[in-house]
């Protein structure tokens, strides 16, 4: 039986995070065609489950890095929504001062140490964070978010080897959404291979879960994070999940034919938010009333974030030279 049943604060945190990711991203999708968010933007709609389950389990002294598809991870780690939207708008108030855009997010105040746009690029960096935690005897752990595509980069293998060798406090959260851009797994990896089993053979304790089942995600994340905190070394979890919209940009793209409508529909019915709400209802933890109330708060935050971004100034052109060196 899951621990989540007895932890109301966590139930709420998960729910809020689910709503926040979904609603903030839906708003991005809605407004993107206006042409004011002028940078490549990768949405996590449909993939909210894993980061939301993780949200209540990390402290701000825990560290995290992510990828091109980082919005959900940034938010789950506690990153400021306003600063994120402002960043996507390229504004001076953006979390990276407009220099990074959607793919380069950071919120040092909550331990979100950065996301970058080169596939695999932050994997060793996250492992290095964990190394520093070990050397400095810090209490936190490091979380590395990766996709199924990123796992094909040699740097993942090298990083996993080092993390296992040094028994570093690092959690690899792999969101396997079956695609790398338009490429299905079968174009890229040997048939029948299970990612988490391969990683286990590299030397990292590994497991697997349904990324759209938030309660299951929470349970397994909690167990593994506790192990890492107890000093037993790195963990890898592969979560099955699915991206609803196009790889990059605001639209649906099933018309392109790289995946079937049936596949899409099968995943859509397994959507993480409604499932989690049902679980809360079934266990009489929350009511529909609660849901609307919380969602209302989130809607407010979403509107506020966009207003903040829209009304913020662009960075001054003259600052373009700043920060080349410190």
């Amino acid at each position, binding site marked *: 039986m899951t621990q989540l049943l007895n932890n109301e604060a966590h139930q709420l945190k998960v729910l809020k995070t689910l709503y926040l990711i979904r609603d903030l991203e839906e708003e991005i999708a809605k407004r993107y065609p206006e042409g004011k968010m002028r940078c490549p933007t990768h949405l996590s709609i449909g993939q909210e489950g894993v980061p939301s389950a993780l949200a209540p389990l990390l402290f701000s002294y825990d560290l995290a890095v992510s990828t091109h598809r980082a919005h959900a991870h940034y938010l789950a780690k506690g990153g400021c929504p306003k600063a994120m939207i402002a960043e996507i708008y*390229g504004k001076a108030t953006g979390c990276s001062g*407009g220099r990074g855009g959607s*793919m380069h997010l950071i919120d040092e105040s909550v331990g979100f140490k950065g996301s970058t746009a080169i596939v695999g690029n932050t994997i060793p960096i996250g492992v290095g964070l964990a190394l520093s935690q070990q050397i400095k005897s810090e209490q936190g752990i490091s979380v590395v978010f990766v996709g199924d595509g*990123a796992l094909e980069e040699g740097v993942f293998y090298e990083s996993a080897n080092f993390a296992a060798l040094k028994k570093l406090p690092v959690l690899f959260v792999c969101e396997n959404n079956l695609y790398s851009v338009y*490429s299905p797994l079968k174009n890229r990896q040997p048939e029948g291979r299970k990612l988490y089993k391969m990683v286990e053979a590299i030397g990292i304790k590994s497991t697997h879960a349904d990324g759209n089942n938030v309660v299951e995600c929470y349970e397994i994340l909690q167990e593994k994070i506790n192990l890492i905190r107890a000093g037993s070394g790195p963990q890898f979890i592969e979560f099955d999940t699915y991206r609803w919209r196009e790889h990059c940009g605001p639209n649906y793209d099933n018309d392109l034919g790289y995946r079937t409508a049936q596949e899409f529909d099968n995943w859509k019915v397994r959507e993480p938010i409604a499932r989690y709400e049902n679980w809360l209802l079934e266990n009489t933890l929350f009511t529909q009333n609660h849901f609307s109330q919380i969602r209302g708060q989130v809607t407010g935050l979403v509107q506020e974030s966009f207003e903040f971004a829209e009304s913020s100034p*662009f960075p001054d052109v003259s600052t373009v030279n700043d920060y*080349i060196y410190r």
Partner: protein
Amino acid sequence: MSCKELTMAQAVNVALTESMEMDESVICYGLGVDDPLRIFGTTANLSENFPQRVFDMPTCENAMTGVGIGAALNGLKPVMVHQRLDFFLLAMDQLVNAAAKWHYMFNGQSNVPIVIRLMIGRGWGQGPTHSQNLHAWFAHIPGLKVVMPTNPNDAYHMLKQAIQDPNPVIFIEHRWLHGQVGLIEKGSHSSIGKAKLLKKGDDITIIAMSYLTVEAIRASEALSKNSVNVELIDLMTVKPIDWETIYESVEKTGRLLVLDTGAETGSVAGEIVAKVSEKCFAHLKAAPSRLAMPDIPEPTSYGLTKQFYFGAKEIAEKVHGMLLENVDSSLYRELDTEGHHDIPGSHFKGPF
């Protein structure tokens, strides 16, 4: 099909198609070559027409470069493509330590006929890790050839040549050029390593490459209205450089401006300024100069990139200043492009 108007993306596609039809040792691979978007359309129909020789790949740039090298060593002619040059940084060991040196270090006994197509660009929020123009790196490595065509016809011919070239060739496509339209002229074409004299003039030599040639043409036209006669050279190949054409021009004009899409320090433009200063010193009437990108990672923000790029206007003002001293700020206002600065201007049909 001779004398048909094509976009540069289409020209690349035709060059690939014809190369694969003509030579069954040509293979073509890279992330997305067979996906719905087909690398900005450049690989359209290839996987349908040559299913055995066109394939998608896992996200592992380093190994896949080595795979291409190995295939090349056994008689294939691989064309690999990366949608951003930046991704290819993962493969520098294979490129520099293997491909570039193989022919030399094994005493000419084997060679690596591989083509690596790299997309460069600027603007529209590509930002620091999706907009790097690092051709200067490749130009520094003995054994590589580096090509940066400007128009559809040159892209078509130079890609076909690159594929048949027995050496590793880096083929760099600027995304702001993919939509540019031009006539494809079949038949002979100058070869890799030759620059092209685009416009004769006596006052100053401008050397441009890739997208900046488009801006330089506009600048030259505007300058000629102010009686400045530019001699404009499209470099086309940045390694090996066509020094003869450059020296000849500078010896005539006595003045030099080199344009570069990369960061200034250590740029190909710098190499040209250096070499010309060494070799044509006696002919120089004034200090040679260059316009290149600032030594700054490209920021993402629309606000920060506003004055980041230079174009026809800045080129014209620079040249005007080199020749006639004071530039009235209104003189080249016509060259200001309308609309957003982070996409190709209205004079120019290009995708992002």
